[in-house]
């Protein structure tokens, strides 16, 4: 039956029928009109009425019988109305759809941006609500055989709903999308969508996308992301619906204006109603050791000069989310669409979280607050295993190294003793220097080997070489920072080994690598393959040059998990935070304003990875007996703070310039639209309405004594 309908539909018009009913159901439905006719003729119950005489009536009927067929039709008007209503209902059940082409249902992939900028209130009530509303409109006009999937994306993508045709579920799931404070990565979302939209892939809930169906991809975003390069959309037909106020009309570029200042940005974005703290750091004053400085930058995205006040609040360490106590404030006047720096000086406050708050009201409140922690230096825990290398030990006694690391020196015998061995296994040290000593098993720490190779089969095939000549070294790596004079270094003997897969060579010689970095289960082994001393005599002239202590210091910095107490390493909302806690316990607790006491287990690398930092603000990591490590999570994302929507071509833009306004996915510019696009509509409910109307007419005729 359904096939028949489709055949009929295919014959005549662009109306197509897609029925969700099976053959059995249609057979039952086909019986309905037959039953009505049968009942009408067999069981018509006429109301008996007594009249004085049937004389005149019978004479009238005799006359009528002359043209009885037509009269019969008129007599059975109610029957025909019933049949018409049933026919229309059946048509409605057949699910006719107005559509240009295609036989099967459409697939929709609805990608909704829920990044931080989508919380902006410049589109009332906010952009995310507008995006959800637009997506729900697509769901509302979905056909009965259409399937849609919903993906929410910020810096990560999440499948909110798998392919389903159930519109109430889809609406619910769309409604459930909550705003995040994360950055935007369209690539993440596209990868998920493309993976699910590929032909013949199982796409969940038992539905297989076939290659015939090209899914329509709707991206609801404000365009706050970089172009996605090198990405193939494949089957997807993207349509970007830009949520946000429309861009102002096109203006000629700056060089066309004679008075434009030269320092103007190459292409400033369109203004938007936002003030944002885009950076915040704290650092000890270089000159005055007891003074801490908190300095940051505020960007004004408005087209007008903005006046606001930056207020400095001090928070309690143990209570993340407390309102804080006002410490200082600075009035700021920020020219349109530029940065303004600010700075607070503090007499050493000890360990304390601070917050800078802007008092201005704007469309995005998240970026008006920024957090930093003062006084959380962490020293690297370094163990040196040497049989008494004076050059090396002296190098580790410089003030800079002492400031940044706690160095323990042990002989190989001491290191093999049980007490030290347990500490090594328990991850007590960040970095272990093996000077010409090879441990029996790899330690639970980063290592730096001098003249020895790490244990393991990869290093079995070492060969001894004489007088290698250093040719090149990798100055791009942090361990080789400021190292310039290696070409002067002489090396008498070295062991050359083919570094294992994934290694990075640091120093190359004419006979092979002299130093390299090799990854090992989350740790890093740095290997310098020539010994420093050969017996009592030096094996190399490296000690004479400044590059040796620099290399040791760099190694401690890079491999020793040193934290200098500044906001250098900023945690972003939604991203995992790696915590280095000076403890050997299996887990620590992290308090946040929303969820205190989250247990975080130790990772194999000895760090603690906190996954729940999805809001900006202060967090506190705690461990027994009295360890406390506050850390800040900040937005600090220029793109998210820039609320001007991207992807819409302003009115009046010349043809040649239009390309630059479009969002590029792969190499294809995609034009954004400001409003939700039209989709194919089901028209079955028109028939259902008609059937209802016919029923009403029938009721009226029956009850209101209308004669035809």
């Amino acid at each position, binding site marked *: 039956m359904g096939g028949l309908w489709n055949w009929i539909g295919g014959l005549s018009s662009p109306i197509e029928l897609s029925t969700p009913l099976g053959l059995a159901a249609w057979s039952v439905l086909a019986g309905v009109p037959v039953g009505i006719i049968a009942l009408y003729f067999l069981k*018509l*119950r*006429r*109301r*008996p*009425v*007594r*009249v*004085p*005489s*049937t*004389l*005149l*009536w*019978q*004479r*009238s*009927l005799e*006359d*009528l019988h002359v043209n009885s067929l037509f*009269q019969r039709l*008129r*007599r*059975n*008007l109610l029957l025909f109305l019933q049949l018409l209503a049933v026919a229309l209902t059946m048509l409605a059940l057949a699910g006719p759809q107005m559509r240009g082409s295609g036989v099967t249902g459409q697939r929709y992939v609805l990608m909704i941006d829920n990044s931080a900028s989508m919380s902006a209130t410049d589109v009332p009530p906010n952009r995310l609500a507008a995006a959800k509303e637009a997506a729900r409109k697509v769901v509302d006009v979905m056909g009965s055989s259409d399937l849609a999937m919903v993906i929410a994306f910020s810096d990560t993508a999440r499948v909110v709903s798998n392919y389903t045709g159930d519109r109430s579920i889809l609406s619910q799931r769309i409604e459930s999308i909550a705003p995040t404070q994360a950055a935007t990565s369209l690539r993440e979302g596209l990868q998920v969508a493309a993976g699910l939209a590929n032909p013949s892939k199982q796409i969940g809930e038992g539905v297989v996308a076939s290659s015939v169906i090209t899914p329509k991809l709707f991206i609801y975003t404000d365009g706050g992301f970089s172009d996605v390069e090198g990405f193939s959309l494949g089957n997807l037909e993207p349509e970007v619906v830009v949520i946000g106020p429309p861009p102002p009309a096109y203006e000629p570029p700056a060089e066309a204006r004679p008075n434009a200042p030269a320092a103007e940005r190459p292409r400033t974005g369109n203004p938007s109603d936002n003030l944002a703290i885009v950076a915040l750091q704290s650092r000890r004053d270089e000159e005055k050791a007891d003074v801490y400085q908190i300095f940051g930058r505020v960007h004004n995205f408005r087209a007008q000069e903005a006046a606001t006040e930056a207020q400095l609040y001090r928070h309690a360490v143990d209570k993340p989310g407390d309102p804080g106590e006002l410490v200082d404030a600075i009035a700021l006047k920020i020219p349109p669409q530029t940065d303004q720096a600010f700075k607070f000086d503090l007499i050493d406050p000890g360990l304390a979280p601070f917050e800078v708050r802007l008092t201005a009201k704007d469309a995005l409140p998240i970026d008006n607050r920024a957090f930093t922690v003062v006084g959380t230096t962490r020293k690297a825990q370094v163990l040196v295993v040497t049989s008494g290398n004076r050059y090396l030990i002296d190098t580790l006694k410089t003030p800079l190294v002492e400031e940044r690391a706690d160095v323990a020196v042990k002989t190989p015998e001491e290191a093999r003793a049980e007490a030290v061995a347990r500490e090594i296994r328990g991850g007590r040290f960040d970095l272990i220097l093996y000077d010409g000593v090879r441990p029996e098993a790899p330690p639970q720490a980063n290592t730096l080997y001098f003249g020895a190779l790490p244990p393991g089969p990869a290093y079995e095939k070492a060969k001894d070489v004489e007088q290698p000549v250093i040719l090149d070294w990798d100055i791009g790596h942090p361990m080789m920072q400021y190292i310039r004079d290696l070409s002067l270094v002489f090396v008498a003997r070295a062991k050359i080994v083919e570094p294992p897969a994934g290694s990075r060579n640091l120093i190359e010689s004419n006979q092979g690598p002299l130093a390299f970095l090799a990854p090992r289960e989350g740790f890093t082994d740095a290997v310098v393959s020539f010994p420093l001393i050969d017996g009592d005599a030096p094996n190399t002239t490296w000690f004479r040059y400044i590059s040796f202590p620099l290399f040791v210091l760099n190694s401690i910095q890079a491999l020793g998990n040193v934290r200098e107490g500044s906001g250098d390493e900023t945690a972003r909302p939604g991203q995992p935070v790696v915590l280095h806690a000076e403890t050997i316990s299996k887990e620590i607790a992290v308090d946040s304003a929303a969820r205190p006491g989250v247990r975080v287990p130790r990772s194999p690398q000895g760090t603690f990875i906190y996954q729940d930092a999805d809001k900006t603000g202060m967090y506190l990591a705690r461990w027994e007996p009295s360890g406390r490590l506050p850390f800040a999570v900040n937005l600090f994302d220029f793109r998210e703070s820039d609320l001007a929507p991207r992807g819409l071509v302003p009115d009046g833009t010349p043809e040649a310039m239009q390309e630059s306004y479009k969002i590029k996915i792969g190499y294809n510019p995609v034009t954004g639209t400001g409003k939700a696009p039209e989709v194919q509509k089901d028209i079955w409910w028109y028939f259902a309405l008609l059937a209802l109307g016919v029923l009403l007419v029938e009721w009226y005729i*029956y009850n209101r*004594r209308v*004669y*035809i």
Partner: protein
Amino acid sequence: MSPETSNIPEVPHRAPAGDPNSGPLLDPVFLHKLEQLELISRKIFVGRMKGERKSRRRGSSVEFAEHRNYTTGDDLRHIDWNVYGRLDKLFLKLFLEEEDLHVYTVLDASLSMDFGTPTKLRYGKQVAAALAFIGLVNHDRVLVDTFSARLEQGLHGIRGRSQMWRVVQYLEKLKPTGSSDLTAACREFAIRHPGKGVVVVISDFLDKRGYQDALRYLLARNMDIYVVHVLSQEEVNPDLVGDLRLVDVEDGNSAEITISAPLLKRYKDTLNAFVGGLKEWCTSRGITYIFTTNQYPFDKLILNYLRERGLVK
């Protein structure tokens, strides 16, 4: 009424309050007006008793009619002796005799008359009572007969207004019964009443056997015939809806109809043809045809309409 049709709901035809089918047939004010009226006949009929009307029969009254030659055996008392004195010939002086008028009222009391508000029967009773009153007041001989399947024995030969109560009592006791057979009733009437006079037939004429034979029996008696055709409003404008089985109250015959606009139009056409046919048949044979419905005020019918038609003056 057949047992089969006894549980069939009737078309409501009685108003709940102020029942038009109860109360006196004639009210005193109306009666007073009726006293002014007089039944007339276009024909002069022979009555049995001397009455207040001129008769074509020559007789002994004061009003001279004509002379004629004496023949043997004539009553010598009527010889005009003055003429004999002058002409020496015997002439009889003839006078117009004054006679009473026979007023027959034949009222249909079949079940079909029991419809309408007021019922057609009640309406017919009122007309019959009014005519009887006029007749009685004028010393006419009044006869009231009713019929359904056959002619019933009614009131015969009452005279004088003092007898009015008998008429009223008779009519009020009258109940609708049986099916109507107009032909049989009229034949019996004609046999039973050989004398001439004014016959007023009050009926709805909804008789499937037709009315022609019936009226022919009356015509054969050379009577002055008036036909009062009473229909109810429900018959003129049927208030019916839907799929119906119409059941004839008299013979139980049923007709299945589905009310529609063409059927209603067809019914009205049929009704008009029926009424028009009866009227034409009557007027072409010297029968005065009076059509009325139960909605037409019956006093107006008597005071205005019958007067126009010449039944009363």
